[in-house]
C-alpha cells in the first residue's frame, strides 16, 4: 500500500475537488477543505502504526522512475526524523484551514493554495530523491507568493517579492549542488542517480568524495545557504519579518512549518552527505545560530508589531534548532529535532491568537492593545500557555527541547568542537526570550484598557478555543512525556550523527539498515579501557576485519550484542567487535565528543 503517496497527494486531490466546486458555495468549500485536512491527518496517524522505531532505514519506501535517462525518480520514504514533521504538518494544516474559514474574498482559491502548500511540505519531508526534494521544496513558493499577494496586508507586494527572491536565490545554487552530487555519483559508479540512499552509500564508503574533496565545502555551502535562508539562519533572515507581517494568518502558521524544511534539509542532506566539510564549517554555522538566537531575541524585544516580534522570535527559536543540529551530539541533535516540533506548536498557538486579535481589531500593533485580560480571559489564558511554552518553562515542551540543545552543545563545546563562548551566548538568549515574551504579554493583557475599541472585545468562541486547545494539549504532552515523541526519532538521529561524524567506511548507510548502529557507534561509553590498549598501540585497524589473534576478546565493550537487531550482512567473527577506530592520537578528526557519560575514553588522556 502506498501510504506515503496517499498522504502527500491527498491535499492536492482536495484542491482539485475544490476546483470543481462553484465559487459561491462557501459552505461546501469550507467543509471540503476541512475534511481534506482532517482526512490527511488521520491517514498520517496511520504512519505511527506502520513505523518501526528500531530501524534507521527508510520505511514504507516507494520508488518509481520519472526521468529515467537522468536517474531521477519518484522516491519517497519515512524515517524517524520525518515522521514527526509529517504529523506536525498535517496537524497544523488543520489549524491553518480552521482559522481561515471566515475569509470573504475568494475562499476557494485560498484553500487551494493552502492545500497545495500542504502537499509541497509533506513531499519535502518524505522525498528521498534529491531532485524530487528540490521540486517539492520549491513548490511552496508560488502558493505562498499568491497567499501573500492576494490576501496579504498593506505592503504585500513588497513582502511577496522579497520572499520569492530570497528563497529562490538561496535554492537555485542548491540545484547546482544537487546536480554536482549526481554527477559525482555518476563519475564514481558509472550510473546516474539522484537517489539520496545511493549517493549517501558512496559518501559512507568515501568513494564519492575521493576525487573531489576540494569541491566538498562549495557544494556543502550551496546546500547550506538554501537551508539557512529557509530556516532562517542569521544573516539570511530578512525576508521573514516582512512575510510574517504581511501574509494572512494561515500563511504564517504554514510558514512556521515551512521553516522546518530548512532545518530538516540540514539533517537530511548536509549532515549525511558532507561529513568532511561539516567538520570544518561547524564552528561558523554554530556561531551563526548563536548570533541568530541572541539577535532575534534582542530585536524582537523592540518591535512595535506583534507579527514582526513573532518573526524575530522565530529566528531566535530556530537558532536553537540549528545549534542543536550542529552540536552533532546525540542530545543536541535530538533536542534540535524536538525543538522543531515545539516551535511549530508554540508559534502556531501564538500566531493563531494574534490572528484572532487581528480579526477582531484589524491590527496587530502593541499600541492598539492593553488591558485585555479582563475582557478576554480565555484568550489571555491560552496565550499565556503558548507563551510559557515558547519561553521554555519546565513542564512545557519548550523546556525539554532547549535544555537538550544546550546540554548537547555544551558537550560538543567541551569536546573542543567549537568555542564555549558560543554556547554561553546562546544560553543567554533564553533569558532574552523570557524578557520579550513577558513584555509582550504585559503590553497586550495587563494594565488598563487604553483604547475604547478594546472595551467590547469578544472572547474566543467555542470553535476557536477548540482549535487552540488541541495545540495546548501537545504543549503539556510534549513537556511531561517527551519520550512519546522522541522515541521514534532516536535511532534515526543516532544514524544521522554517525553518518556525519564517522570515519570513512565507518558510517552507517541507509541501504543496509539491518546492520545495527552499534557497529558504527563511537560514542557508546567504553568502560573496559583495557580493551582499547592494543588499538592505541597498533593504531587504527580496518573495520570489520577478522580480528588478529593478539587482540583480546573485548567482552562487554558496551556493545549490545544480539539485542534483537539482526546481524550485519558481512558476517564478522564473533570476537571481532567494531572497536572505535582511532586515527593518529590527538587528531582533531577523532570524534571524541558527545559521550553521554562523563567517563572519557582512554585516548583522551594522552593529550
Amino acid at each position: 500500500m502506498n501510504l506515503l503517496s496517499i498522504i502527500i497527494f491527498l491535499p492536492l486531490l482536495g484542491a482539485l475537488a475544490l476546483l470543481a466546486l462553484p465559487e459561491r458555495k462557501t459552505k461546501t468549500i469550507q467543509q471540503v477543505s476541512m475534511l481534506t485536512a482532517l482526512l490527511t491527518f488521520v491517514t498520517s496517524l496511520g504512519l505511527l502504526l506502520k513505523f518501526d522505531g528500531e530501524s534507521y532505514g527508510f520505511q514504507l519506501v516507494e520508488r518509481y522512475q520519472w526521468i529515467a535517462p537522468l536517474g531521477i525518480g519518484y522516491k519517497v520514504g519515512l524515517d524517524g526524523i520525518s515522521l514527526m514533521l509529517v504529523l506536525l504538518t498535517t496537524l497544523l494544516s488543520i489549524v491553518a484551514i480552521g482559522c481561515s474559514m471566515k475569509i470573504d474574498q475568494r475562499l476557494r482559491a485560498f484553500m487551494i493554495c493552502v492545500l497545495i502548500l500542504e502537499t509541497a511540505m509533506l513531499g519535502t519531508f518524505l522525498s528521498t530523491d534529491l531532485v524530487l526534494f528540490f521540486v517539492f521544496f520549491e513548490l511552496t513558493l508560488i502558493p505562498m507568493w499568491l497567499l501573500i499577494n492576494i490576501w496579504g496586508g498593506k505592503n504585500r507586494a513588497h513582502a511577496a517579492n522579497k520572499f520569492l527572491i530570497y528563497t529562490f536565490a538561496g535554492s537555485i545554487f542548491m540545484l547546482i549542488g544537487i546536480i554536482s552530487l549526481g554527477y559525482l555519483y555518476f563519475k564514481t559508479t558509472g550510473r546516474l542517480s539522484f537517489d539520496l540512499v545511493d549517493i549517501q552509500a558512496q559518501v559512507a564508503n568515501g568513494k564519492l568524495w575521493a576525487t573531489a574533496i576540494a569541491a566538498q565545502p562549495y557544494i556543502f555551502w550551496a546546500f547550506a545557504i538554501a537551508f539557512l535562508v529557509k530556516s532562517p539562519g542569521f544573516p539570511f533572515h530578512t525576508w521573514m519579518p516582512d512575510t510574517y507581517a504581511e501574509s494572512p494568518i494561515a500563511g504564517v502558521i504554514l510558514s512556521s512549518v515551512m521553516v522546518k524544511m530548512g532545518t530538516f534539509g540540514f539533517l537530511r542532506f548536509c549532515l549525511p552527505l558532507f561529513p568532511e566539510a561539516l567538520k570544518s564549517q561547524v564552528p561558523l554555522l554554530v556561531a551563526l545560530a548563536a548570533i541568530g538566537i541572541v539577535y532575534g531575541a534582542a530585536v524582537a524585544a523592540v518591535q512595535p508589531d506583534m507579527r514582526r516580534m513573532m518573526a524575530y522570535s522565530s529566528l531566535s527559536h530556530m537558532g536553537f534548532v540549528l545549534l542543536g543540529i550542529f552540536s552533532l551530539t546525540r542530545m543536541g541533535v535530538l533536542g534540535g529535532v524536538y525543538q522543531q516540533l515545539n516551535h511549530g506548536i508554540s508559534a502556531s498557538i501564538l500566531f493563531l491568537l494574534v490572528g484572532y486579535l487581528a480579526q477582531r481589531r484589524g491590527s496587530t500593533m502593541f499600541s492598539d492593545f492593553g488591558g485585555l485580560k479582563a475582557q478576554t480571559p480565555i484568550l489571555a489564558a491560552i496565550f499565556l500557555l503558548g507563551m510559557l511554552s515558547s519561553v521554555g518553562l519546565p513542564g512545557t515542551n519548550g523546556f525539554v527541547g532547549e535544555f537538550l540543545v544546550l546540554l548537547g552543545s555544551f558537550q560538543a563545546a567541551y569536546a573542543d568542537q567549537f568555542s564555549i563562548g558560543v554556547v554561553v551566548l546562546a544560553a543567554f538568549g533564553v533569558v532574552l526570550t523570557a524578557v520579550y515574551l513577558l513584555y509582550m504579554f504585559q503590553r497586550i493583557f495587563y494594565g488598563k484598557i487604553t483604547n475604547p475599541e478594546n472595551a467590547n472585545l469578544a472572547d474566543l468562541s467555542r470553535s476557536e478555543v477548540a482549535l487552540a486547545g488541541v495545540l495546548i494539549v501537545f504543549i503539556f504532552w510534549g513537556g511531561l512525556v517527551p519520550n512519546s515523541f522522541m522515541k521514534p526519532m532516536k535511532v534515526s538521529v543516532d544514524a544521522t550523527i554517525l553518518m556525519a561524524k564517522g570515519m570513512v567506511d565507518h558510517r552507517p548507510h541507509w541501504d543496509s539498515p539491518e546492520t545495527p548502529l552499534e557497529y558504527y557507534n563511537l560514542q557508546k561509553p567504553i568502560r573496559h579501557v583495557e580493551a582499547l590498549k592494543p588499538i592505541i598501540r597498533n593504531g587504527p585497524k580496518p573495520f570489520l576485519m577478522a580480528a588478529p589473534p593478539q587482540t583480546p576478546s573485548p567482552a562487554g565493550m558496551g556493545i549490545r550484542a544480539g539485542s534483537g537487531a539482526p546481524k550485519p550482512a558481512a558476517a564478522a567473527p564473533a570476537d571481532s567487535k567494531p572497536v572505535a577506530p582511532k586515527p593518529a592520537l590527538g587528531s582533531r578528526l577523532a570524534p571524541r565528543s558527545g559521550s553521554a557519560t562523563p567517563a572519557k575514553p582512554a585516548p583522551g588522556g594522552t593529550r
Partner: protein
Amino acid sequence: MDKAFHFAIPVIDWTALLPIMIVAVTGIFALIAEMFRPKHNNNLIVGVSLGGLALAAVASALSLQQPSYTTAAELFLRDSLGTVAQLLILLATALTISFSEGYLRNKRIPFGEFYPLVLWSSVGAMIMTSTMNLLVIFLGLEILSVSLYVMAGMSRSEEKSEESALKYFLLGAFASGFLLYGIAFVYGATGGLDLNVVNAVWLRHEASSHTLLLFGFGLMLIGLGFKTSMAPFHQWTPDVYQGAPTNVAAFMATAAKIAGFVTLLRVVSAFGALHNFWLPALTAIAILTMFAGNFAALVQKDVKRILGYSSVANAGYVMVAIIAFGRDSSLGYGTVMYFLLSYTLMTIGAFAVVSMAAKNRRESTKLEDLNGLWRRSPFVALTLVIFMASLIGIPPTAGFVGKFLIFFDALKTDQIPLAIVLAVNSIISIYYYMAIARAVFVSDSADVEPDTSKPSAGVAAVCAVCAIGIFAAVAFVGPFVGLLSTK
C-alpha cells in the same frame, strides 16, 4: 558527355517532405478561403489553417521513430532533431493562430492574409530545421523572414508597427547578408555546401581552409545570432516585439527562434573540431546575452518589451546548452529541444494574455494595463502566474526541468562558470517576471473605467493548453530526451 552538364534528377522521398508540403498547401487553401469568408469573419480561415497544421503534425509525428536519412540529393535531412523541431514549430504556429482571431478583431485589423503568411513563414522555419545544406538553410531563413517582415507591419495605422517592420526588415536583411557571406567562405574552404564535411576539412590541416572556415563560422554566427537575438545583436528585439502586433511577436519569439537555434545547433556540432576557437567566443556571447537581457528587462515598464528582453535572456540560456552540446555531442539534442518546448509554451501563453489588452484599434501594453485582470478573469490571471513561474524556473513546471537539463549539461562538460552565471540570471529574472505576475493582482486605479471584457475563447484556450502543457511536459521529459539522444 561533359561532366558539368550531367545532371541526374534526384530521387525524392516525398514522405519526408510531406509535413512541409501540407503546411504550404494549407497556406494556399487559407488564401482561397479568404475569398469565400463573410465580411470580417475569419473563422473559416482559422479552421482551415488549424486543420492543415494538425494534419502536418500527424504526418511529422508518424516519421518520428524512423532512422535518419537524407533525400533529394542530400538537400533534405529527416532526423529526430528536425522532426521534433518541426513539431514544435507547428505547435507554436497553431497556438499563435488560435489566439490571433480575437486579437486581430479587437484591434480592428482582421485581415485574412495573416493566416497564409504565418503558415508560409512556418514553412520556411521547418525547411531550415531539416537540412544540413547551407544554401537550403538560407532559403528557409528567407522564406521565414520575408513573411515576418510583412506581418510585423500589419497594423498599418500604427506608427510603431511600421517602425517595427522597417527595423526588422533592414536589420534582418543585413543579417542575412552576413549569413550568406559566411556560407560563401565555408563553400570556399570545403568546396561544398554540406555542413557534414566541415570537420573533415578542418582536420586535414590546410592553413588556407582554416582561415576560410573560421571567417565563415564567425560570419554565420553573426547572422544566426541576429535571428536568435543574441547579444550584442539583440537590440532590435524589444523594439520589434513592442511594435509588431502581439500575435506576430509571439510567433517571432518562438517559431522563428526555434528554427534559428536548431540551425545553430547543427552548425555548432558541424564545427565541433574548431571548438578551441568558438568556445571562448560563444561563452562570452552567452554570458553577455544573459546579462544584457536580464538587466535591460529590469527597468522596462512595457510587458511586450519585458517579454522581448526575456526572450534575449532565454536565448542566452539556450546558448549554454548549445555550448555544452558542442563540447560533447553525446549529450544529445534533448536539452535544447526540451528547453525550447517549455519556452514556446510559456512565451506564447504570456503573449496570449498580453493580447487581451487590445481594444478598439488601440493597444497599450504597459504593466498597469494588466491591472484588474484577477477580477476580470481569475483563470487567465492564474495561468499567467504559471507562465511566469515557469519562465523563472520554479518546479514543478517545464521551465524548471528545462533549466535543470541545461545545468546538468553545463556541469557535465565542466562549464561551471556558465552554470553559475545562469543561476545568477535566474535570480535576477524573478524581479521582472514577478512584476508582470503581480500587476494582475493590483486592482484598477480609480480614475480608469474598469474593463469588464472577458477573454476571448481563443485566448482562454491557448492559456489552458499552455498551462496544462507546462505541467504535462514534466511527466514526459524522459521519453522526450531519450528520443533525441545521439548515443
